[in-house]
């Protein structure tokens, strides 16, 4: 029983970061109609930058965390302006090819720069495990859970209760109509991409603080993010949050009770089941012709 609770806890902690990653991705798809396969590279950049800022520049962990996310957002803004804006009316497949090209480029440039060896971000809390009611966890895990929860709630407030959020939702559901009532949808697209990239970078920096950071970490992360987004329904934010937690927990159980070799595979089987039986996603509505 304890073992089950332990895996559940681990799953929720990882899953919260997955949720953060997937919310950014689903937002970019919903508002920009770009299937962003470069999303994982922002995740990687967040983690790697955080590592370098702490290790090389000897910055305080919390400062480094914020700075890494901000720098990734700046990169997101540059990419959006220089390349992704060209994809405004492109076919979905073109957006996939271009973002895959970007992803391959960024990942390999990073590989040239830092090499393939995984690094670990020094934890600001030390590594002493905390035992509570039979469950073992570390302070950094709790920190990760708290930050992701805070950011997701904050984002929800932004979306529901601010003017910017309203404009984003309008663009999301009816782009042309949004433009007609005077919303600058290009600007909304920029903001969306920067915000989404920031969420990915934060997820990377946080999970990188529990695990390791390395140049190819984004490749598997983006697959997981897509599994979650499809599971939750493309463009469905609540679905992405629920899907992220679900995938985290499922992976936790597989690696805890079957084999960690196959924990990465479970998402694939889940997504196939979803596509077979509920193709609009677990929380999606049925489309119309």
């Amino acid at each position, binding site marked *: 029983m304890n073992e089950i609770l332990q895996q559940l806890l681990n799953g929720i902690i990882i899953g919260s970061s997955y949720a953060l990653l997937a919310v950014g991705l689903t937002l970019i798809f919903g508002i920009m109609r770009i299937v962003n396969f470069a999303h994982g590279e922002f995740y990687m950049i967040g983690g790697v930058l955080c590592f370098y800022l702490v290790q090389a520049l000897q910055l305080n962990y919390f400062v480094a965390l914020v700075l890494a996310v901000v720098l990734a957002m700046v990169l997101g803004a540059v990419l959006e302006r220089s390349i992704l804006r060209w994809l405004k009316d492109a076919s979905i497949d073109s957006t*996939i090819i271009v973002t895959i090209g970007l992803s*391959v480029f960024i990942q390999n*440039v990073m590989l*040239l720069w830092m090499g393939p060896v995984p690094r670990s971000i020094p934890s600001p809390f030390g590594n002493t495990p905390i035992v509570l009611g039979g469950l073992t966890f570390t302070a950094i895990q709790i920190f990760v859970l708290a930050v992701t929860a805070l950011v997701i709630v904050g984002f929800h407030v932004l979306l529901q209760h601010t003017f910017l959020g309203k404009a984003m939702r309008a663009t999301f559901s009816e782009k042309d109509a949004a433009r007609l009532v005077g919303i600058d949808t290009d600007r909304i697209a920029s903001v969306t991409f920067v915000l989404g990239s920031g969420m990915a970078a934060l997820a990377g920096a946080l999970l990188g603080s529990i695990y390791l950071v390395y140049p190819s970490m984004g490749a*598997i992360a983006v697959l997981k993010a897509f599994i979650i987004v499809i599971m939750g329904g493309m463009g469905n934010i609540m679905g992405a949050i629920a899907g992220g937690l679900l995938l985290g927990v499922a992976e936790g159980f597989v690696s805890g009770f079957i084999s960690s070799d196959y924990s*990465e595979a479970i*998402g694939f089987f889940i*997504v196939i089941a979803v*596509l077979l039986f509920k193709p609009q996603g677990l929380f999606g509505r049925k489309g119309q012709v």
Partner: protein
Amino acid sequence: MRLTPKRAFLVAVVALAAAAPWILPNYYLHILTTAGLFVMLTSGLNLIHGYIGRLSLGHTAFYGLGGYTAALLSTKLGLGLLLTLPLAALTAAVAGLVLGHITLRFRGAQFVLVTLAFAAILHLFANNLVDFTGGPMGLSGVASPLLHKDLEGFQVFGSRASFYWLVLALDVVTVYLVWRIVHSVLGDAMIAVREDEHLAEAIGINEYRYSMLAFVFGAAVAGVAGAVYAHYVSFVSPEIFNFSIMIMILVMVILGSVGTVVGPVIGSILVVVLLETLRLQESLREPIFGITLVAVTLLFPQGLAVLAGRRFGRRRAGSGAAAQPEVASPATASLAGAAPAAARGGVLLSVEHLTVRFGGLIAVDDVSFEVRRGQIVSLIGPNGAGKTTTLNLVTAFIARNAGRIVFDGHECPRHMSPHQVAELGMIRTFQTTRGLLAVPIGKAVATGLHRTLGLGWGRIARAALLGLPDQGLERRALEILRQVGLDRDPDELTANLSYGEQRLLEVAIALAARPSLLVLDEPVAGMNMEETVRMMALIRRLRDSGITILLVEHDMKLVMGLSDHIVVLDHGKRIAEGTPAEIQGNPQVIEAYLGRGAVNAAA
């Protein structure tokens, strides 16, 4: 077979390639063999991406599957190449069938993700099932039976020649088959699926079948390529599933020109040769591939073959005068597509208690009506009355919740594909101009003839292997274009037509599919007066030639002027039906359109 300059050129190229072992040293043969393997991979991927419009990023899965199948059969069972190659093709084809069944109903992100993840999963299993696959170390000692280095007479060529010839032969077969497929009615059907799957289904093209055909073909060819590779290097490891190989194939296809037969060949050879001559550091390759994908997609998405072809074409322009279309004899001037007007007046379509709910909303509520043969029946009603939804239900684009539909004596079950409905002779058009926009109009109408060609599996196989005899598709298409009054050059692209002409083209495509019931969704919406009059005359002519017509329309002049029978819907319910005169005087109808006040005023 006539020897045209083009064919002579191709024969010369193949002959020259076959002579390479006499000319080139082993090192170059190795490079060409590698390029040849990529030609197999890219030709298959191109058929999938370029013709059915699915971006598969799991093509290496089939390559690796073929490689492992051959390696296992060779090392564990000692089977030779003659058996491992077909078995590898079979394994890959079966995997393609399963994966295709799951993914082909999707496009975009879902399709890409599942294909990508499929390759990733195979990579994972290859790495972890150590007893079976040798794990990360892979399987070595795969027999290389064609390395006749000791065989007398072959020494001049060295050990590479036999594999080179094998790959060359497989390339020729692959490219021939792709060429056959895309230049046959199968290719037309695939392009229709790529351009607009709803339109394709509406004219009776089974989207699933043609998508699957392309997908499984690509998978099988990739499986063979993987098997040859395993025998060639006598080794296979999980790296065969690597995403970097996938990226390379994608670069080759996109650089070469997606959706052309020759593009992938050019792309494969170009990339392999460039990589060898530039002798790039391994670590620089992938960043360059990445940036190439971005640059080609944004700057010249047509790719090299199309760019080169355009240059070449411009130089040639004017030399080949377009063949004048044969003038149809007056005897065939009646509407070619018309089904025999048998049993005029009998019930062709009967709809009973049709109901559909979207969430809590009942969009169509217990609607019943009949369409009699040889009549024009109109569905009218205010906005949101459920007219188009009714059409979608009848043509099986939406599954109904309840009710019964009988068409031409056939009971239509609840879950039927639109192409099955089309197969029965009910062909529809759409409200928004849909399109085979990238297709010349003659070709578009010829695509509409698909249903009339009787394409069973036997004929499909013949079309792919040998080609079908000319069935005069172009001539028939021209005739139909003339009949609807669309006098344009059949080579004109659909995208260049005016709006009114595009709507006429849609009717022409539908007519080509030989409807017994033609279903028109707002045929004159957005048309000017002159175009409307023309369309009205056409619809009347079609009815007089024996085609029954069911239409949804807002234009009351058209509805009242044309219809034999009118069904009025409001809020998803049928509120009236009758002749135009009866409908015009019906107070319930006036109320639905104009509100209660209007009825009182009229009274």
